């Protein structure tokens, strides 16, 4: 997704782009340094894990702009941080799942338990509560973001063991297994995709996807640098500016009751107006009161 944003910058702004993947956490500092030295106008650090490396490298290159996705930026004039309100999109996913479920049991499958993924989990739970107070959410963590087999088995366990019929994953490539498991179970079961629009990965079996527009964020930063409009600090994007949101549901829109879709639209509006604030932590979830329908 970040790469797609760069490609857009390449096309529309004529930017020269280069991507380096870090093989290990120990490479972060070195890779950031190399890119800063190479004379790129802006260097992106993608992922909260690069936070500390950025803190180390950014002060040494005051003329280079740095942007971090999903992490905190150091308090420097050349650094910007982009964060997403995953809990908002997840809330809508949960609200939809709550309205569509037949078994009143929903599943959530995370990659690893950490604050970022927790935002998906509790946002989803709050959404479920809002449209279906009777439903319960089964939670499981794979323990990795690249283990499709464990993702698949965990999904099977939630569907067979707990009778969950809609599973939302925030588990990266482990989520491939979740979608495959749902696809194999067939009619009556849905997966909810994450990050990018995964609806086409199992047409008709992926209810919707909670899309996170990292590409838009990356492009925005590139644009701001190319027009000398770069602003340091933290930018948080949510349903506003379409930083997060549900996919267009190309394959499932007809299967979902129209009133459910209308309800989602209404909830989205309430979030945008600030009338609903989806929770981001367990504590906030405990204090969360589902709005009256």
């Amino acid at each position, binding site marked *: 997704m970040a790469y797609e944003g760069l490609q857009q910058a390449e096309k529309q702004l004529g930017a020269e782009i280069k991507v380096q993947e870090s093989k290990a956490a120990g490479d972060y500092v070195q890779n950031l340094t190399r890119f800063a030295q190479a004379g790129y106008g802006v260097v992106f650090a993608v992922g909260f894990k690069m936070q500390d490396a950025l803190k180390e490298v950014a002060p040494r290159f005051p003329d280079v702009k740095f942007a971090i996705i999903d992490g905190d930026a150091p308090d420097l004039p050349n650094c910007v941080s982009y964060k997403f309100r995953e809990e908002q999109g997840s809330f809508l996913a949960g609200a939809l799942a709550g309205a569509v479920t037949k078994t009143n049991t929903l599943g959530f499958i995370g990659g690893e338990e950490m604050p970022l993924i927790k935002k998906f989990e509790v946002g989803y739970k709050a959404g479920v509560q809002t449209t279906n107070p009777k439903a319960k959410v089964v939670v499981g963590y794979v323990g990795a973001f690249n283990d499709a*087999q464990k993702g698949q088995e965990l999904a099977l366990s939630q569907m067979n063991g707990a009778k969950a019929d809609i599973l939302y994953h925030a588990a990266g490539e482990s989520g491939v297994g979740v979608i495959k498991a749902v696809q194999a179970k067939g009619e009556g079961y849905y997966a909810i995709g994450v990050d990018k629009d995964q609806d086409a990965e199992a047409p008709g079996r992926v209810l919707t996807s909670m899309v996170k527009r990292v590409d838009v964020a990356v492009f925005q930063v590139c644009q701001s640098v190319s027009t000398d409009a770069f602003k340091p600090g933290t930018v948080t994007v949510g349903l506003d500016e379409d930083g997060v949101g549900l996919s267009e549901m190309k394959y499932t829109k007809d299967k979902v009751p129209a009133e459910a879709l209308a309800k989602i639209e209404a909830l989205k509006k309430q979030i945008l107006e600030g009338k609903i604030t989806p929770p981001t932590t367990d504590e906030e979830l405990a204090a969360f009161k589902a709005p009256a329908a």
Partner: protein
Amino acid sequence: MIDLSDLVSAAFRFWTPLGFAAMGGVVSERAGVVNIGLEAMMLGGAFAGVAVASTSGNAYLGLAAGTATGALIGFLHAVLTQALRVPHILSGVGLNLGILGLTTYLLRVYFGGALDTENKLPGLFVTLLGIVTVLTLFFILARTPLGLRLRAVGENPAAARSAGVNVTRLRYSAVTLSGALAGIGGVALALAALGSFRENMTGGRGYIALAAVIFGRWHPLGAAAAAFFFALGDALQQSLQTAGLAERIPPDFLTLLPYLLTLIALAGLSGKASAPAALGNQEA
């Protein structure tokens, strides 16, 4: 609360890839060659298996391709350790990194980062094949002249050579077979229930399989049982999460459980574990 048949069938699905790779580990190590490269052989097998199954439309061709790819990587490990005298661990780790890089590269350049196929192998068939493999290997090692020679090569290559055994040839065969078995393990992981290949999808299963070999004291039945123990641990921790235990116990701890049990079990066995005497020897 937890359905026993669901639990056991999940454990068998987790076991199958591990069991194949562990048998690969047994064959190689009983011949005296440390095989930490099982991970590479699994990953290579998984990639080739799904790539061929999706392009040819035939899952069994995928199985053949995955087996052959594993064997090829195994053969490479044999060349590196036997002909070029590279330390076994170094060769294995090098292969793991190299195959990870290569499969990732090929996946992104030729398949857009994701490989999926509808042409899957029946899970039950693959698991039964795994059980048959374990029993066959047990029989060969314990009851046949070939098994005796293989064990001799791992225990005392000099003596085996003076008894007329072609040590080098036997090691090449053993390590190549080891790769083939681990390659089938990779196919079992990617092409049985899933029908997908993703970057680094083995996620350390080669290392777990090697731990099962040690835990099972280099014995086919022991290694297979140890692999099943790990697999059951994974299935169990997932069932516990589904049963709602994650609300009270951190899920991180639950996912850690199988590994923790391994550590405890290995620590308890450490005095008694007996590796083949010539395991990892550079001189042969």
